[in-house]
């Protein structure tokens, strides 16, 4: 049974359509990431599931029950907000205890649960502090603990890592994923960061302009994008798209390699003029353009740092190629035309 199902959810603010008919089913215990650029409607969609916004139309089911008219507190959801939404005047202990108090829990049950959640998240030493005395990472854990004590059916997380610095974000990411696996609660996680999405999601739902573009495992989304938007939204640098026969052809920078490295498999050769080489420690990013006969489009290539760069220097032409199996084709409207799902 799906933990959360939405059917044709639409949300309009005046003339602006924020969510444009999203239907999806989140499996029990799954970590689903809603990924999309800022303003694509992913947060609004999450708030609709939480009950903080009413959908203009559409049905939401949580645990098999229609919850459209159920208030947020009774939906069995817990939410972690972008700025955590901690109660600034309450201690960490009282912050975590707050949802239990509103439920009218017994004193010893509150104590037991708050201590359990604090220990699980490693914040029991902070119990008497106030939010302003905590670091970003600690605040995030307090917010998680407060969500956890409610025994929710679903966790809703709205960009919870966006306020952390880059280094902390990486470790928080793996902690969060580990935490979700430990409690195995269905989780819907909103982010605009593809690295978070790829690293944490069991599945990713890519949203653009209020519409669900594609839902699938990180591998499916990355290797088999259904359209140009998904193809160019994921990957750093994103997939190269070059015009071809009224449509376009795409290939990932890491599959665009010097011809001599691709022996055996059938390839498509693409002479590449390198304009600039960027050294990033573990890899080189090559910026340049294809031979004018193919397309004038700028393309990038990604080579591992240990690859030899013989003959590769700014201004030089080099024979590059892509394996035929790594090519993706899109029609004039940006939709995939070749068969989706190659042999693995």
């Amino acid at each position, binding site marked *: 049974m799906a933990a959360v199902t939405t059917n044709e959810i639409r949300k309009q603010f005046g003339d602006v359509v924020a969510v444009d008919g999203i239907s999806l089913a989140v499996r029990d215990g799954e970590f689903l990431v809603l990924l999309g650029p800022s303003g694509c409607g992913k947060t609004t969609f999450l708030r609709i599931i939480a*009950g903080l916004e009413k959908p203009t139309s559409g049905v939401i089911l949580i645990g098999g029950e229609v919850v459209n008219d159920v208030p*947020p507190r009774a939906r069995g959801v817990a*939410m972690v907000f*972008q700025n955590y939404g901690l109660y600034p005047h309450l201690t960490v202990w009282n912050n975590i205890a*707050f949802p239990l108090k509103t439920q009218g829990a017994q004193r010893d049950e509150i104590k037991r649960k708050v201590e359990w959640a604090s220990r699980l998240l490693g914040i029991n030493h902070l119990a008497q502090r106030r939010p*302003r005395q905590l670091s970003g990472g600690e605040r995030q854990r307090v917010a998680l603990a407060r969500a956890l004590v409610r025994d929710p059916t679903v966790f809703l997380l709205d960009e919870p890592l966006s306020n952390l610095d880059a280094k902390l974000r990486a470790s928080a990411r793996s902690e969060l994923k580990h935490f979700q696996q430990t409690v195995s609660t269905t989780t819907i996680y909103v982010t605009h960061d593809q690295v978070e999405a790829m690293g944490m999601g069991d599945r990713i739902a890519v949203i653009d302009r209020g519409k669900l573009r594609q839902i699938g495992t990180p591998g499916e989304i990355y290797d088999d994008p259904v359209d140009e938007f998904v193809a160019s939204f994921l990957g750093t640098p994103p997939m190269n798209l070059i015009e071809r026969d009224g449509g376009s052809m795409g290939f990932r920078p890491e599959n665009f390699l010097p011809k001599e490295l691709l022996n055996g498999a059938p390839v498509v050769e693409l002479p590449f003029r390198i304009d600039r080489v960027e050294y990033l420690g573990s890899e080189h990013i090559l910026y340049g353009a294809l031979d004018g006969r193919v397309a004038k489009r700028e393309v990038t290539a990604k080579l591992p740092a240990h690859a030899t760069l013989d003959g590769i220097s700014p201004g030089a032409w080099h024979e590059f190629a892509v394996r035929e199996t790594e090519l993706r084709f899109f029609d004039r409207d940006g939709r995939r035309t070749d068969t989706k799902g190659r042999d693995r």
Partner: protein
Amino acid sequence: MTTITATPRPMRSRFLLDRSEVVGPLFIAPAILYVLVLVGLPFLLALYYSVSAYSIFNPSFAFVGLKNFRDVIDSEIFRRTLVNTLVFTISAQIIGLLLGKIGAMLLMQEFRGRGVARALVVLPWAVPVSLATIAWLWMFDSLYSVINWTLIAVGLVDAANRPQWLGQEDLAMIAVVVVHAWRLFPFGVVIFLAGFTSVPKDVLDAATVDGAGFWRRNYQLILPIIAPIVLIALIFGTVFTFTDLSVVYLLTKGGPINSTQVLGTYAFQVGILSGDVAHGAAICLFLFPFLLVAVILLLRSLRRREI
């Protein structure tokens, strides 16, 4: 190796205004001057009057120690004035802030014409106090009172037995408190509106998801969070009301039989109208030490509460 010596260049006068140690004092000077001349000087003068035997009939600066203060404490009218001042200040504060909170909560709601409503609410504050109070004077008039007319029309009050708002001791106090609370109300609304809008949206959303109902949301979350702002309003409101005389003076002049006499009006009556400047100053300054301590305590608790 050559040593680089810094030769001080002559300070050019055209950069004078770029130096904060010059511009700073220059900009602050008017404010300091204003406070010194119009607040500091009269205050010191009052301090001296209060320990002298100065009156307009006998302008002597003879030092008499704390005699003036002993005299006013011994006066029954003064003790009544003191009680009146407390009643007047505290009840006007409570009513004004309470209504302010309700008003702010209503004005937070989305409705048609909210902008107009917000502007109207601030009106009592924008109208000169004397004009507003004179309007109230008419509403409390013994014959033409619109309040009485309404009460009679609804049948709550007997026409032959209509209340004399400014002529009966208890009603007069109610009247001055009502008018002063009405004047404080916009201040309360503005303060609470500022407070409500300063509560982070995430916190309110979290409260909704956590299942906080109306009372818990308002009194366990919002009120404690905006408490520092409300406390400031309370300090200002209290100090201003303690020292205010306009509403009472215009409505009742302290009467009937001193039932609405407050420190401001009494000091004015004794010090200016009767010419006994020394005792007037003593009345004025009587609460100064208490107010000072109260303000310091409130400000300190404010700093502790800061979030």
